[in-house]
């Protein structure tokens, strides 16, 4: 089979477009999250999507509406993480743990009520980028534009709070508001990414391109661009390689991501 033959499949075209857009979002947000030590927020929010997906499946909601229905749940959970951390005076990781375990527990209960784990639920748990529909692609494109434009609009503020929150306060930046924006954008991206790599592996798509970029980057913007490059290469490589050798796409994407991280780590060590 020729490479160009593969590209003629409509489902692959959709997977390539959606995968590239979502990889870009995860890679950009990942740099901010990793440097702000919020890496695991993606994991926590992904577990919430498990609860909302189980609920959608319980009520036999169609695939595209399952994704859309997850958005308010995940946004509310993101707000919940910030509020719990603030009001209960606990660290962010503990707040993420609370919301994350609540999401999983709810998902298991609802999945049990729906008659146990079925094929649909597994496709969300482990990802199925090749099954992305035309409507899901449109949702992905719209959310991509919204998230990327918001990041672009607040880029310097996001950079400032990532470098040092207190310096940002004394620069007149409303740190709390920018934190909210970052977490809400992450929530939207997590919803999009669940079909690409699956709920179980979303955090890897946020973390791995960013940490690989941080091994080599010689500046903040350079870190963002490198992260995007690694994210896109791993998603496209994962789609093609998994299609050719018939492997699960989500897991293949993450393995390629890890290999890129290992290479950059080795390069950094060699460079000294």
């Amino acid at each position, binding site marked *: 089979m020729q490479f160009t033959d593969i590209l003629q499949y409509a489902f692959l075209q959709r997977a390539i477009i959606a995968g590239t857009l979502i990889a870009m979002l995860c890679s950009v947000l990942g740099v901010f999250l990793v*440097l702000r030590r919020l890496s695991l927020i993606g994991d926590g929010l992904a577990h919430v999507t498990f609860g909302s997906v189980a609920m959608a499946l319980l009520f036999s909601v169609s695939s595209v509406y399952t994704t859309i229905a997850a958005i308010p749940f995940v946004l509310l959970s993101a707000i919940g993480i910030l509020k719990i951390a603030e009001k209960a005076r606990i660290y962010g990781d503990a707040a993420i743990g609370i919301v994350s375990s609540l999401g999983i527990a709810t998902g298991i209960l609802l999945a049990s009520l729906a008659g146990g784990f079925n094929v649909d639920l597994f496709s969300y748990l482990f990802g199925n980028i090749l099954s992305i529909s035309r409507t899901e692609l449109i949702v992905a494109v719209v959310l991509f534009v919204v998230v990327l434009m918001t990041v672009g*609009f*607040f880029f*310097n*503020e996001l*950079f*400032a709070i990532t*470098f*040092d929150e*207190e*310096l*940002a*306060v*004394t*620069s*007149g*930046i409303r740190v709390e508001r920018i934190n909210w924006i970052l977490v809400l954008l992450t929530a939207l991206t997590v919803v999009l990414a669940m079909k690409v790599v699956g709920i179980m592996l979303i955090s890897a798509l946020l973390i791995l391109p960013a940490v690989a*970029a*941080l091994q080599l*980057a*010689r*500046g*903040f*913007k*350079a*870190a963002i661009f490198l992260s995007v490059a690694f994210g896109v290469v791993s998603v496209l490589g994962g789609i093609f390689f998994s299609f050719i050798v018939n492997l699960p796409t989500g897991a293949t994407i993450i393995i390629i991501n890890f290999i890129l991280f290992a290479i950059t780590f080795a390069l950094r060590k060699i460079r000294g």
Partner: protein
Amino acid sequence: MHGEVISIEGLSFAYQGSEVLRDITCAVKTGDYVGIVGPNGSGKSTLIRCILGLNRPVNGSISLFGVPQNSFQEWKRIGYLPQGLQLFNPNFPATVAEVVKLGLLSGKKAPKRFDHVDSAAVDRIMELMGIIAIKNKLIGELSGGLRQRALLARALVNDPDLLILDEPTTALDPETRESFYQVIKDLNRTKNTTVLLVTHDTATVGLYASRLLYLDKRIIYYGSFEDFCTSLEMTEIFGGHAQHLICRRH
């Protein structure tokens, strides 16, 4: 012109029920160079943090340039170099130029965007601070002295009217410390920049500061350095010999 840059009235601050600052009342005027000294835990950094709005006081009021602190917007007029940045992530992927440029955000309204004029301002301050040659180096790769220079450049890039420094020379060697303080002193003299310097180094603060604020949860002494040398309260705290040594170095 000698307007009030900072005005503090009856300020008190407590952390988890324990008192850190009690009934602080003082004013800092344009062109003052105030050295804030006192023992560990005396509330020096807390006072600075209250002034900047990073800590919320229990009682009292603070005005910056005649505006109540909680509605103060002109952050461009203040340059701040905090103590904690010595502990920042050494692997943070930002170049010296990117960090210095961040200082310009305080003068911008949302969306906070940079333009070519900003790049020129960044180059100018880096030139002045002698760090232009390392503008593309990562901030984490610099020695302590160069990093502090870069962070000072960030604080100065807006040409602030008030410069607040919280133990800026901790962990610097004596030579670097000397040149660092010389830069601040020159700014105070040539541009009339008001300086607030928190330091534990009581022995040398008189070399630079024109006024001294001795804090131990409350103000023990606030006045000119000359008066400090004859203050009986300070004699009680330092002992006559130490006070004499400090004053001889002025």
